[in-house]
Protein backbone atom coordinates (compact mmCIF):
# COMPACT_ATOMS: atom_id res chain seq x y z
CA UNK A 1 0.00 0.00 0.00
CA UNK A 2 1.07 3.56 -0.70
CA UNK A 3 0.44 6.49 1.63
CA UNK A 4 -0.33 10.11 0.81
CA UNK A 5 -0.14 13.01 3.22
CA UNK A 6 -2.94 15.50 2.64
CA UNK A 7 -2.66 18.92 4.25
CA UNK A 8 -5.41 21.47 3.65
CA UNK A 9 -3.20 24.31 4.90
CA UNK A 10 -5.49 24.90 7.85
CA UNK A 11 -5.48 28.41 9.33
CA UNK A 12 -3.73 28.06 12.70
CA UNK A 13 -5.37 30.99 14.51
CA UNK A 14 -8.76 31.82 15.98
CA UNK A 15 -11.54 31.59 13.43
CA UNK A 16 -15.08 30.30 13.14
CA UNK A 17 -14.93 26.58 12.27
CA UNK A 18 -18.66 25.94 12.28
CA UNK A 19 -19.98 28.24 9.56
CA UNK A 20 -19.52 28.66 5.82
CA UNK A 21 -18.57 31.09 4.46
CA UNK A 22 -16.45 31.97 7.47
CA UNK A 23 -16.07 35.64 8.36
CA UNK A 24 -12.51 36.95 8.27
CA UNK A 25 -12.91 39.37 11.17
CA UNK A 26 -10.25 37.61 13.25
CA UNK A 27 -7.92 37.05 10.30
CA UNK A 28 -4.22 37.70 10.80
CA UNK A 29 -1.83 37.86 7.87
CA UNK A 30 0.99 36.77 10.14
CA UNK A 31 -0.93 33.66 11.26
CA UNK A 32 -1.83 32.84 7.67
CA UNK A 33 1.80 33.11 6.60
CA UNK A 34 2.84 30.84 9.47
CA UNK A 35 0.10 28.38 8.51
CA UNK A 36 1.32 28.26 4.92
CA UNK A 37 4.93 27.82 6.03
CA UNK A 38 3.94 25.04 8.43
CA UNK A 39 2.12 23.29 5.61
CA UNK A 40 5.16 23.48 3.35
CA UNK A 41 7.36 22.18 6.19
CA UNK A 42 5.01 19.28 6.84
CA UNK A 43 4.91 18.30 3.20
CA UNK A 44 8.70 18.37 3.12
CA UNK A 45 8.74 16.19 6.21
CA UNK A 46 6.34 13.73 4.58
CA UNK A 47 8.66 13.55 1.58
CA UNK A 48 11.63 12.84 3.85
CA UNK A 49 9.76 10.15 5.80
CA UNK A 50 8.83 8.19 2.71
CA UNK A 51 5.22 9.15 1.96
CA UNK A 52 4.48 8.23 -1.65
CA UNK A 53 2.24 11.18 -2.48
CA UNK A 54 1.58 14.62 -1.03
CA UNK A 55 -1.98 15.82 -1.57
CA UNK A 56 -3.57 19.23 -1.95
CA UNK A 57 -7.20 20.13 -2.65
CA UNK A 58 -9.48 23.05 -3.43
CA UNK A 59 -11.75 24.59 -0.81
CA UNK A 60 -13.00 28.14 -0.52
CA UNK A 61 -14.02 30.73 2.05
CA UNK A 62 -12.94 28.82 5.15
CA UNK A 63 -10.08 28.57 7.67
CA UNK A 64 -10.33 24.81 7.08
CA UNK A 65 -8.19 25.35 3.99
CA UNK A 66 -5.98 28.15 2.72
CA UNK A 67 -5.63 26.59 -0.74
CA UNK A 68 -8.57 27.86 -2.81
CA UNK A 69 -6.23 27.41 -5.77
CA UNK A 70 -4.42 24.17 -4.92
CA UNK A 71 -2.40 24.48 -8.13
CA UNK A 72 -0.43 27.30 -6.49
CA UNK A 73 0.44 25.17 -3.48
CA UNK A 74 1.28 22.27 -5.79
CA UNK A 75 3.56 24.56 -7.80
CA UNK A 76 5.47 25.38 -4.63
CA UNK A 77 5.67 21.66 -3.82
CA UNK A 78 7.28 20.88 -7.18
CA UNK A 79 10.28 22.81 -5.86
CA UNK A 80 10.33 21.58 -2.24
CA UNK A 81 9.10 17.97 -2.44
CA UNK A 82 11.86 16.11 -4.21
CA UNK A 83 10.66 12.52 -4.37
CA UNK A 84 6.95 12.03 -3.65
CA UNK A 85 4.28 12.40 -6.32
CA UNK A 86 2.16 15.53 -6.11
CA UNK A 87 -1.54 14.73 -6.03
CA UNK A 88 -4.00 17.53 -6.69
CA UNK A 89 -7.22 15.90 -5.47
CA UNK A 90 -8.41 18.06 -6.76
CA UNK A 91 -9.61 21.10 -8.54
CA UNK A 92 -13.41 21.43 -8.38
CA UNK A 93 -13.77 21.03 -12.11
CA UNK A 94 -17.39 22.10 -12.75
CA UNK A 95 -16.85 25.54 -11.20
CA UNK A 96 -13.61 26.24 -13.09
CA UNK A 97 -12.43 26.91 -16.62
CA UNK A 98 -11.45 23.41 -17.82
CA UNK A 99 -8.81 24.70 -20.21
CA UNK A 100 -7.15 26.57 -17.37
CA UNK A 101 -7.22 23.36 -15.32
CA UNK A 102 -5.62 21.41 -18.19
CA UNK A 103 -2.93 24.07 -18.57
CA UNK A 104 -2.16 24.19 -14.86
CA UNK A 105 -1.88 20.41 -14.58
CA UNK A 106 0.41 20.35 -17.63
CA UNK A 107 2.58 23.05 -16.05
CA UNK A 108 2.77 21.15 -12.76
CA UNK A 109 3.59 17.90 -14.51
CA UNK A 110 6.39 19.60 -16.41
CA UNK A 111 7.73 21.44 -13.35
CA UNK A 112 7.70 18.23 -11.28
CA UNK A 113 9.25 15.96 -13.88
CA UNK A 114 6.06 13.96 -14.42
CA UNK A 115 5.09 13.42 -10.77
CA UNK A 116 1.55 14.79 -10.87
CA UNK A 117 -1.62 12.86 -10.03
CA UNK A 118 -4.77 14.50 -11.38
CA UNK A 119 -7.90 14.29 -9.26
CA UNK A 120 -10.85 15.68 -11.16
CA UNK A 121 -13.65 16.27 -8.68
CA UNK A 122 -17.09 17.84 -8.31
CA UNK A 123 -16.24 19.20 -4.85
CA UNK A 124 -18.37 19.78 -1.80
CA UNK A 125 -21.86 21.34 -2.09
CA UNK A 126 -20.80 24.76 -0.73
CA UNK A 127 -18.29 25.27 -3.57
CA UNK A 128 -21.17 25.89 -6.00
CA UNK A 129 -21.88 29.15 -4.20
CA UNK A 130 -18.27 30.26 -4.59
CA UNK A 131 -18.31 30.96 -8.31
CA UNK A 132 -22.09 30.96 -8.70
CA UNK A 133 -22.53 27.72 -10.62
CA UNK A 134 -25.85 25.85 -10.59
CA UNK A 135 -25.25 22.53 -8.75
CA UNK A 136 -28.04 20.82 -10.71
CA UNK A 137 -25.71 20.99 -13.73
CA UNK A 138 -22.69 19.78 -11.79
CA UNK A 139 -22.47 16.24 -13.16
CA UNK A 140 -23.12 17.22 -16.79
CA UNK A 141 -20.59 20.06 -16.59
CA UNK A 142 -18.12 17.71 -14.94
CA UNK A 143 -18.35 14.98 -17.56
CA UNK A 144 -18.00 17.45 -20.41
CA UNK A 145 -15.10 19.22 -18.71
CA UNK A 146 -13.22 15.95 -18.14
CA UNK A 147 -13.47 15.09 -21.82
CA UNK A 148 -12.30 18.57 -22.76
CA UNK A 149 -9.34 18.42 -20.36
CA UNK A 150 -8.26 15.07 -21.77
CA UNK A 151 -8.51 16.33 -25.33
CA UNK A 152 -6.56 19.49 -24.45
CA UNK A 153 -3.81 17.28 -22.98
CA UNK A 154 -3.59 14.83 -25.88
CA UNK A 155 -4.65 16.51 -29.15
CA UNK A 156 -1.61 17.92 -30.98
CA UNK A 157 -3.60 20.03 -33.48
CA UNK A 158 -5.52 23.15 -32.44
CA UNK A 159 -9.25 22.45 -32.09
CA UNK A 160 -12.45 24.26 -31.20
CA UNK A 161 -15.04 22.90 -28.77
CA UNK A 162 -18.79 23.20 -29.14
CA UNK A 163 -20.13 21.72 -25.93
CA UNK A 164 -23.23 22.06 -23.82
CA UNK A 165 -21.53 24.11 -21.11
CA UNK A 166 -18.20 25.09 -22.65
CA UNK A 167 -17.36 26.73 -25.93
CA UNK A 168 -13.88 27.50 -27.24
CA UNK A 169 -12.96 28.50 -30.74
CA UNK A 170 -9.35 27.36 -30.55
CA UNK A 171 -7.45 25.25 -28.00
CA UNK A 172 -3.80 24.21 -28.17
CA UNK A 173 -2.13 24.13 -24.77
CA UNK A 174 1.55 24.66 -23.99
CA UNK A 175 3.22 23.12 -22.08
CA UNK A 176 1.90 19.59 -22.57
CA UNK A 177 1.82 17.03 -19.71
CA UNK A 178 5.16 15.32 -19.09
CA UNK A 179 3.48 11.95 -18.57
CA UNK A 180 2.14 10.16 -21.64
CA UNK A 181 -0.61 10.30 -22.56
CA UNK A 182 -1.40 12.35 -19.44
CA UNK A 183 -1.21 12.20 -15.61
CA UNK A 184 -3.17 9.41 -13.91
CA UNK A 185 -6.76 10.51 -13.32
CA UNK A 186 -8.82 9.83 -10.20
CA UNK A 187 -12.44 10.81 -9.73
CA UNK A 188 -14.64 10.72 -6.66
CA UNK A 189 -16.53 7.48 -6.31
CA UNK A 190 -18.86 7.67 -3.37
CA UNK A 191 -22.12 7.65 -5.34
CA UNK A 192 -23.22 4.87 -7.71
CA UNK A 193 -23.21 7.32 -10.62
CA UNK A 194 -19.60 8.29 -9.91
CA UNK A 195 -18.52 4.65 -9.66
CA UNK A 196 -20.12 3.85 -13.01
CA UNK A 197 -18.54 6.90 -14.59
CA UNK A 198 -15.07 6.03 -13.22
CA UNK A 199 -15.37 2.46 -14.45
CA UNK A 200 -16.62 3.48 -17.90
CA UNK A 201 -13.63 5.80 -18.36
CA UNK A 202 -11.06 3.56 -16.63
CA UNK A 203 -10.32 6.19 -14.02
CA UNK A 204 -9.09 5.58 -10.49
CA UNK A 205 -11.63 5.85 -7.69
CA UNK A 206 -11.27 8.23 -4.74
CA UNK A 207 -13.34 7.69 -1.60
CA UNK A 208 -13.26 10.72 0.66
CA UNK A 209 -14.91 11.39 4.02
CA UNK A 210 -17.05 8.32 3.56
CA UNK A 211 -17.86 5.53 5.98
CA UNK A 212 -16.40 2.06 5.80
CA UNK A 213 -19.73 0.31 5.05
CA UNK A 214 -20.50 2.83 2.30
CA UNK A 215 -16.97 2.57 0.88
CA UNK A 216 -17.25 -1.20 0.75
CA UNK A 217 -20.46 -0.86 -1.24
CA UNK A 218 -18.93 1.79 -3.55
CA UNK A 219 -15.87 -0.31 -4.35
CA UNK A 220 -17.94 -3.42 -5.06
CA UNK A 221 -20.07 -1.36 -7.44
CA UNK A 222 -16.98 0.13 -9.14
CA UNK A 223 -15.41 -3.29 -9.60
CA UNK A 224 -18.65 -4.75 -10.97
CA UNK A 225 -19.01 -1.86 -13.43
CA UNK A 226 -15.35 -2.17 -14.49
CA UNK A 227 -15.91 -5.88 -15.21
CA UNK A 228 -18.89 -4.93 -17.36
CA UNK A 229 -16.65 -2.52 -19.29
CA UNK A 230 -13.98 -5.21 -19.75
CA UNK A 231 -11.25 -4.32 -17.28
CA UNK A 232 -10.15 -4.99 -13.70
CA UNK A 233 -8.99 -2.14 -11.43
CA UNK A 234 -5.74 -2.67 -9.53
CA UNK A 235 -5.54 -1.85 -5.83
CA UNK A 236 -3.76 1.40 -6.74
CA UNK A 237 -6.89 2.45 -8.62
CA UNK A 238 -8.62 2.80 -5.24
CA UNK A 239 -7.74 5.67 -2.90
CA UNK A 240 -9.29 5.82 0.57
CA UNK A 241 -9.06 9.22 2.25
CA UNK A 242 -9.25 9.27 6.03
CA UNK A 243 -8.20 11.81 8.67
CA UNK A 244 -5.19 10.85 10.77
CA UNK A 245 -3.47 11.73 14.00
CA UNK A 246 -0.73 9.48 15.39
CA UNK A 247 1.00 9.95 18.76
CA UNK A 248 3.30 7.79 20.88
CA UNK A 249 0.31 6.39 22.76
CA UNK A 250 -3.43 6.07 22.13
CA UNK A 251 -4.21 8.33 25.08
CA UNK A 252 -1.82 11.00 23.83
CA UNK A 253 -3.36 10.94 20.35
CA UNK A 254 -6.87 11.40 21.73
CA UNK A 255 -5.67 14.11 24.11
CA UNK A 256 -3.97 15.97 21.22
CA UNK A 257 -7.19 15.98 19.23
CA UNK A 258 -9.11 17.46 22.14
CA UNK A 259 -7.05 20.65 21.66
CA UNK A 260 -8.24 21.08 18.10
CA UNK A 261 -11.56 22.53 16.96
CA UNK A 262 -14.61 20.22 16.91
CA UNK A 263 -14.83 18.62 13.51
CA UNK A 264 -17.67 19.80 11.29
CA UNK A 265 -17.30 18.92 7.62
CA UNK A 266 -17.42 21.83 5.18
CA UNK A 267 -20.62 20.52 3.63
CA UNK A 268 -22.49 20.81 6.91
CA UNK A 269 -21.26 24.26 7.95
CA UNK A 270 -24.12 25.89 6.08
CA UNK A 271 -27.30 23.82 6.28
CA UNK A 272 -29.27 26.10 3.94
CA UNK A 273 -26.66 25.74 1.21
CA UNK A 274 -26.35 22.00 1.76
CA UNK A 275 -30.15 21.53 1.60
CA UNK A 276 -30.49 23.66 -1.53
CA UNK A 277 -27.70 21.73 -3.24
CA UNK A 278 -29.26 18.41 -2.17
CA UNK A 279 -32.60 19.52 -3.64
CA UNK A 280 -30.84 20.23 -6.95
CA UNK A 281 -30.09 16.52 -7.35
CA UNK A 282 -26.37 17.00 -6.74
CA UNK A 283 -25.94 13.82 -4.71
CA UNK A 284 -27.51 11.46 -7.24
CA UNK A 285 -29.75 8.47 -6.66
CA UNK A 286 -28.59 7.48 -3.18
CA UNK A 287 -28.71 10.99 -1.75
CA UNK A 288 -29.71 9.80 1.73
CA UNK A 289 -26.52 7.71 2.11
CA UNK A 290 -24.38 10.51 0.70
CA UNK A 291 -25.78 13.11 3.08
CA UNK A 292 -25.59 10.75 6.03
CA UNK A 293 -21.86 10.14 5.54
CA UNK A 294 -21.28 13.89 5.91
CA UNK A 295 -23.22 14.26 9.17
CA UNK A 296 -21.22 15.50 12.19
CA UNK A 297 -20.22 12.69 14.59
CA UNK A 298 -18.21 12.34 17.79
CA UNK A 299 -14.65 10.97 17.70
CA UNK A 300 -15.49 7.45 18.85
CA UNK A 301 -18.12 7.01 16.18
CA UNK A 302 -15.85 8.47 13.50
CA UNK A 303 -13.14 5.94 14.42
CA UNK A 304 -15.63 3.06 14.31
CA UNK A 305 -17.00 4.14 10.93
CA UNK A 306 -13.58 4.46 9.31
CA UNK A 307 -13.62 8.26 9.11
CA UNK A 308 -10.51 8.97 11.18
CA UNK A 309 -7.35 7.16 12.33
CA UNK A 310 -6.38 8.07 15.87
CA UNK A 311 -3.90 6.39 18.16
CA UNK A 312 -0.44 4.97 18.52
CA UNK A 313 1.33 3.60 15.43
CA UNK A 314 0.20 0.10 16.36
CA UNK A 315 -3.44 1.14 16.71
CA UNK A 316 -3.43 3.11 13.48
CA UNK A 317 -1.83 0.22 11.64
CA UNK A 318 -4.65 -2.07 12.82
CA UNK A 319 -7.23 0.47 11.68
CA UNK A 320 -5.65 0.70 8.23
CA UNK A 321 -5.47 -3.07 7.88
CA UNK A 322 -9.17 -3.28 8.76
CA UNK A 323 -10.00 -0.72 6.07
CA UNK A 324 -7.84 -2.47 3.50
CA UNK A 325 -9.49 -5.80 4.25
CA UNK A 326 -12.87 -4.26 3.41
CA UNK A 327 -12.11 -2.02 0.41
CA UNK A 328 -8.80 -3.30 -1.03
CA UNK A 329 -7.38 0.18 -1.46
CA UNK A 330 -3.81 0.46 -2.71
CA UNK A 331 -3.47 4.08 -1.59
CA UNK A 332 -4.44 5.67 1.70
CA UNK A 333 -4.73 9.46 1.57
CA UNK A 334 -4.26 10.96 5.00
CA UNK A 335 -5.56 14.45 5.76
CA UNK A 336 -4.01 15.73 8.96
CA UNK A 337 -6.85 15.54 11.45
CA UNK A 338 -5.72 18.65 13.22
CA UNK A 339 -3.02 21.27 13.01
CA UNK A 340 -1.06 21.48 16.26
CA UNK A 341 2.42 22.38 15.11
CA UNK A 342 4.93 20.10 16.84
CA UNK A 343 2.51 17.22 17.68
CA UNK A 344 1.41 17.19 14.04
CA UNK A 345 4.99 17.05 12.81
CA UNK A 346 5.56 14.21 15.29
CA UNK A 347 2.49 12.44 13.85
CA UNK A 348 4.01 12.61 10.36
CA UNK A 349 7.29 11.22 11.66
CA UNK A 350 5.60 8.40 13.59
CA UNK A 351 3.49 7.45 10.61
CA UNK A 352 6.45 7.56 8.24
CA UNK A 353 8.80 5.56 10.44
CA UNK A 354 6.52 3.15 12.32
CA UNK A 355 3.41 2.66 10.19
CA UNK A 356 4.32 3.20 6.57
CA UNK A 357 7.04 0.49 6.35
CA UNK A 358 4.51 -2.04 7.64
CA UNK A 359 1.91 -1.08 5.02
CA UNK A 360 4.06 -2.13 2.12
CA UNK A 361 2.96 -5.75 2.23
CA UNK A 362 -0.70 -4.77 1.79
CA UNK A 363 -1.57 -5.22 -1.88
Amino acid at each position, binding site marked *: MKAALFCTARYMGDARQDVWPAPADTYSAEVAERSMQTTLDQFRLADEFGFDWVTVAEHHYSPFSLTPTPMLMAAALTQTVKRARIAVLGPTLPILNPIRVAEEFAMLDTMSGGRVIAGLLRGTPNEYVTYNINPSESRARFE*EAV*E*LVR*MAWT*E*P*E*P*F*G*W*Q*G*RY*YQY*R*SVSIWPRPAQAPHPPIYVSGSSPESGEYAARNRFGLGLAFTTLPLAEKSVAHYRACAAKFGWEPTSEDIVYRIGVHVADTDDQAVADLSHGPRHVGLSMRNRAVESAVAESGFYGRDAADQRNRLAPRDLKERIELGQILVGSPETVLKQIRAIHAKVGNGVIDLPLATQLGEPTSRAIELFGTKVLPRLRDLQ
Partner: protein
Amino acid sequence: MTGFAERLVTIDGARVRALEAGEGPALVVIGRDAPDPLDALLARRAKVVIVPAAAGAAFSAARELGLDRFTPVVRGADATTMLALAAREPAQVRSVVLLGPTPPGAELAAAPMPVLALFGTRDTVSTREARRWRAGLADCHVVMVYDAGADPAVERPEAVADVVLDFLEHEDRFLVTHASGQLYP
Protein backbone atom coordinates in the same frame (compact mmCIF):
# COMPACT_ATOMS: atom_id res chain seq x y z
CA MET B 1 -40.54 21.91 -42.33
CA THR B 2 -42.25 25.27 -42.39
CA GLY B 3 -40.79 28.37 -43.96
CA PHE B 4 -39.10 26.76 -46.96
CA ALA B 5 -40.35 27.82 -50.39
CA GLU B 6 -39.97 25.78 -53.58
CA ARG B 7 -37.73 27.19 -56.32
CA LEU B 8 -37.31 25.40 -59.65
CA VAL B 9 -33.77 25.31 -60.98
CA THR B 10 -32.24 23.65 -64.05
CA ILE B 11 -29.60 21.01 -63.39
CA ASP B 12 -28.10 19.04 -66.27
CA GLY B 13 -31.01 20.14 -68.45
CA ALA B 14 -33.72 18.98 -66.05
CA ARG B 15 -36.00 21.11 -63.90
CA VAL B 16 -35.36 20.28 -60.26
CA ARG B 17 -37.18 21.43 -57.12
CA ALA B 18 -34.88 23.33 -54.73
CA LEU B 19 -35.99 24.70 -51.36
CA GLU B 20 -35.14 28.13 -50.00
CA ALA B 21 -35.68 29.97 -46.69
CA GLY B 22 -34.23 32.84 -44.70
CA GLU B 23 -32.28 35.99 -45.44
CA GLY B 24 -28.57 36.73 -45.13
CA PRO B 25 -25.36 35.15 -46.39
CA ALA B 26 -26.10 32.13 -48.59
CA LEU B 27 -25.66 28.53 -47.46
CA VAL B 28 -26.18 25.83 -50.09
CA VAL B 29 -27.02 22.39 -48.71
CA ILE B 30 -26.31 19.60 -51.17
CA GLY B 31 -27.73 16.14 -51.71
CA ARG B 32 -31.05 16.31 -49.87
CA ASP B 33 -34.63 16.98 -50.93
CA ALA B 34 -36.11 18.09 -47.61
CA PRO B 35 -34.97 20.39 -44.82
CA ASP B 36 -33.88 18.98 -41.45
CA PRO B 37 -33.90 20.72 -38.05
CA LEU B 38 -30.43 22.18 -38.67
CA ASP B 39 -31.57 23.84 -41.91
CA ALA B 40 -34.45 25.53 -40.09
CA LEU B 41 -32.10 26.83 -37.40
CA LEU B 42 -29.65 28.14 -39.99
CA ALA B 43 -32.44 29.89 -41.90
CA ARG B 44 -33.02 32.18 -38.90
CA ARG B 45 -29.90 34.17 -39.82
CA ALA B 46 -28.90 32.94 -43.29
CA LYS B 47 -30.41 32.23 -46.70
CA VAL B 48 -30.52 28.43 -46.87
CA VAL B 49 -30.91 26.74 -50.26
CA ILE B 50 -31.37 22.96 -50.37
CA VAL B 51 -30.44 21.36 -53.69
CA PRO B 52 -31.30 17.67 -54.28
CA ALA B 53 -28.29 17.00 -56.48
CA ALA B 54 -24.55 16.30 -56.37
CA ALA B 55 -21.89 18.86 -55.44
CA GLY B 56 -21.39 20.26 -58.95
CA ALA B 57 -25.07 21.23 -59.16
CA ALA B 58 -24.61 23.72 -56.33
CA PHE B 59 -22.77 26.10 -58.64
CA SER B 60 -25.38 26.20 -61.41
CA ALA B 61 -28.24 26.30 -58.89
CA ALA B 62 -26.60 29.18 -57.03
CA ARG B 63 -26.06 31.14 -60.27
CA GLU B 64 -29.67 30.57 -61.33
CA LEU B 65 -30.92 31.75 -57.94
CA GLY B 66 -28.83 34.91 -58.17
CA LEU B 67 -26.33 34.05 -55.47
CA ASP B 68 -22.99 35.66 -56.31
CA ARG B 69 -21.13 33.81 -53.63
CA PHE B 70 -22.21 31.01 -51.34
CA THR B 71 -21.02 28.65 -48.61
CA PRO B 72 -21.68 24.97 -49.36
CA VAL B 73 -22.67 22.76 -46.42
CA VAL B 74 -21.46 19.25 -47.15
CA ARG B 75 -21.22 15.78 -45.63
CA GLY B 76 -19.28 12.62 -46.46
CA ALA B 77 -18.05 12.06 -50.03
CA ASP B 78 -19.69 15.33 -51.19
CA ALA B 79 -17.17 17.20 -49.06
CA THR B 80 -14.10 16.12 -51.02
CA THR B 81 -15.86 16.71 -54.35
CA MET B 82 -16.94 20.15 -53.23
CA LEU B 83 -13.42 21.05 -52.12
CA ALA B 84 -12.08 20.12 -55.57
CA LEU B 85 -14.75 22.25 -57.25
CA ALA B 86 -14.18 25.14 -54.85
CA ALA B 87 -10.45 25.02 -55.58
CA ARG B 88 -11.27 25.42 -59.30
CA GLU B 89 -13.88 28.18 -58.83
CA PRO B 90 -12.81 30.04 -55.69
CA ALA B 91 -14.55 33.28 -56.70
CA GLN B 92 -18.00 31.74 -56.23
CA VAL B 93 -17.31 29.93 -52.94
CA ARG B 94 -17.08 32.17 -49.93
CA SER B 95 -16.26 29.41 -47.45
CA VAL B 96 -17.00 25.70 -46.89
CA VAL B 97 -18.73 23.95 -43.98
CA LEU B 98 -18.06 20.25 -43.47
CA LEU B 99 -20.34 18.22 -41.20
CA GLY B 100 -18.77 14.97 -39.98
CA PRO B 101 -16.13 12.65 -41.40
CA THR B 102 -15.29 12.07 -45.06
CA PRO B 103 -14.55 8.62 -46.56
CA PRO B 104 -11.17 7.20 -45.46
CA GLY B 105 -8.33 8.12 -47.78
CA ALA B 106 -10.35 10.66 -49.77
CA GLU B 107 -8.04 13.33 -51.13
CA LEU B 108 -8.51 16.92 -49.98
CA ALA B 109 -8.04 19.55 -52.70
CA ALA B 110 -6.17 22.70 -51.69
CA ALA B 111 -9.16 25.02 -51.49
CA PRO B 112 -7.99 28.53 -50.51
CA MET B 113 -11.14 29.79 -48.74
CA PRO B 114 -11.88 29.42 -45.00
CA VAL B 115 -13.20 25.96 -44.07
CA LEU B 116 -15.13 25.02 -40.94
CA ALA B 117 -14.92 21.28 -40.23
CA LEU B 118 -17.17 19.86 -37.48
CA PHE B 119 -16.65 16.43 -35.94
CA GLY B 120 -18.40 14.65 -33.07
CA THR B 121 -16.39 13.72 -29.99
CA ARG B 122 -18.07 10.28 -29.88
CA ASP B 123 -17.07 9.55 -33.47
CA THR B 124 -14.10 7.18 -33.24
CA VAL B 125 -12.43 8.53 -36.39
CA SER B 126 -13.01 12.19 -35.58
CA THR B 127 -9.62 13.21 -34.19
CA ARG B 128 -7.74 11.47 -36.99
CA GLU B 129 -10.01 13.11 -39.58
CA ALA B 130 -9.69 16.48 -37.88
CA ARG B 131 -5.90 16.34 -38.04
CA ARG B 132 -6.04 15.39 -41.73
CA TRP B 133 -8.28 18.36 -42.52
CA ARG B 134 -6.15 20.80 -40.59
CA ALA B 135 -2.96 19.52 -42.18
CA GLY B 136 -4.40 19.41 -45.70
CA LEU B 137 -6.01 22.83 -45.95
CA ALA B 138 -4.57 26.30 -45.70
CA ASP B 139 -7.36 27.81 -43.65
CA CYS B 140 -9.28 25.10 -41.79
CA HIS B 141 -10.97 25.53 -38.41
CA VAL B 142 -11.72 22.25 -36.67
CA VAL B 143 -14.46 22.32 -34.05
CA MET B 144 -15.31 19.26 -31.97
CA VAL B 145 -19.01 18.91 -31.19
CA TYR B 146 -19.23 17.40 -27.74
CA ASP B 147 -21.34 14.28 -27.24
CA ALA B 148 -22.09 13.85 -30.95
CA GLY B 149 -21.15 10.89 -33.16
CA ALA B 150 -20.67 10.72 -36.91
CA ASP B 151 -23.51 13.12 -37.69
CA PRO B 152 -23.30 16.12 -35.34
CA ALA B 153 -25.85 18.06 -37.41
CA VAL B 154 -28.55 15.53 -36.60
CA GLU B 155 -27.47 14.81 -33.03
CA ARG B 156 -26.84 18.37 -31.79
CA PRO B 157 -28.38 20.75 -34.36
CA GLU B 158 -28.54 23.78 -32.02
CA ALA B 159 -24.83 23.55 -31.21
CA VAL B 160 -23.92 23.08 -34.87
CA ALA B 161 -26.16 25.94 -36.06
CA ASP B 162 -24.62 28.31 -33.53
CA VAL B 163 -21.04 27.77 -34.66
CA VAL B 164 -21.90 27.63 -38.39
CA LEU B 165 -23.75 30.96 -38.21
CA ASP B 166 -20.93 32.54 -36.21
CA PHE B 167 -18.46 31.35 -38.84
CA LEU B 168 -20.70 32.51 -41.67
CA GLU B 169 -21.00 35.97 -40.19
CA HIS B 170 -17.39 36.52 -39.14
CA GLU B 171 -15.33 33.94 -41.14
CA ASP B 172 -11.80 33.69 -39.67
CA ARG B 173 -12.64 36.43 -37.19
CA PHE B 174 -15.09 34.05 -35.48
CA LEU B 175 -12.10 33.00 -33.37
CA VAL B 176 -12.80 36.10 -31.30
CA THR B 177 -16.13 35.99 -29.52
CA HIS B 178 -18.63 38.68 -30.38
CA ALA B 179 -21.05 37.66 -27.62
CA SER B 180 -21.56 40.16 -24.83
CA GLY B 181 -20.56 39.13 -21.32
CA GLN B 182 -22.39 41.99 -19.67
CA LEU B 183 -25.17 40.88 -17.31
CA TYR B 184 -26.92 44.20 -16.74
CA PRO B 185 -26.39 47.78 -17.92
